[in-house]
């Protein structure tokens, strides 16, 4: 195992460990936990199976293995960004609804219109 490979494996393992710790502390919801555990395991697998990956790259017509890896990683990150954007959009529309609910509840409790 080259020094570079060792480095990549260590990074991937640390990644998995950090994800599991967040899951353990219940800071990550189940759906996201599944995603990031998958990412961590894929990282370990890819760093160990470099020859296999090179073969796959050649098979699909990419001459330099790592550039296929970069392309896939980039696409995956775009996908994650998109899904996070969707989540944030949903959360912000829910916040608006909640704020409206609170406003109406408050109005019902302490009438703001003065009828004197």
């Amino acid at each position: 195992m080259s020094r570079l490979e060792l480095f990549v494996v260590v990074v991937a393992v640390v990644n998995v460990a950090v994800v599991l710790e967040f899951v353990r502390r219940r800071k990550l919801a189940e759906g996201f936990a599944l995603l990031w555990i998958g990412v961590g395991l894929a990282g370990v697998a890819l760093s160990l199976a470099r020859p296999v990956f090179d073969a796959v790259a050649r098979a699909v017509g990419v001459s330099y293995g790592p550039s296929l890896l970069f392309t896939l990683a980039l696409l995956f990150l775009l996908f994650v960004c998109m899904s996070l954007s969707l989540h944030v959009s949903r959360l912000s529309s829910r916040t608006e609804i909640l704020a409206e609910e609170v406003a109406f509840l408050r109005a019902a409790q302490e009438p703001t219109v003065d009828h004197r």
Partner: protein
Amino acid sequence: MHRRRAGKDTVLSELLVVIPALDEEATVGDVVRAAREHIGGSVLVVDDGSVDETAAVALAAGATVVRHPFNLGVGAAVRSGLRYASEHGYTAVLQLDADGQHDPSDGRRLVERLHEDSADIVVGTRFGGNYRVRGLRRLGMRTLAKVVSTRLGTRLTDTTSGYRAFGKRAVDRLSRTYPSVYLSDTVEVLLMAGDWGFRVVEEPVHMHPRKGGRPSSGPALSTVNFLRLVLVIVLHDIRRPMSRRGGP
């Protein structure tokens, strides 16, 4: 007010029937009326962000209605019901589906078993009667039942049933911590009960064919949900228990 006894110790005024409902205007009225007739106690419908007339229909049928401002999922609806019960001094909760598939006349038995068996949770098993599942679904349900039974040290055959009775201890403890991940909630809550040393028993219930609404999910979504459920079970051991306030 005229009180009847549901079980040895539960006066009906201490029982809250909790019915989580999402867009079930076609059936929720009949379910509420049947629950009032066959089970007694108070009936609470938790409207989980319906866009139809579920809340109005439930109210007209004589239920108390709590409405979520948007859809939060069945687990959250059950948690709201348990929290309502805990905060209003109810000592037992019967959870019942709004789509009419659960027979309200089984409800009283579930509540009685809380006392007969000094149980904290009574699960209504659908395999006691006319309910049949096939293929992968059957395999999945059996595997779940086996895993959960082993961990709890009690034989359970149907771990995803949403027809359940909760005793006082379970109501209070789960009123903040009932999990809300879709489908996993029914199984995870049993694992939590196991951690707390709660006694869980099961009682056969009958299933009616669906009268209105739509089935919860197709095969593809079921598979995703099942995988998430497996994750929840696997992670359960390494995860910190939820705090008593709920959340991390």
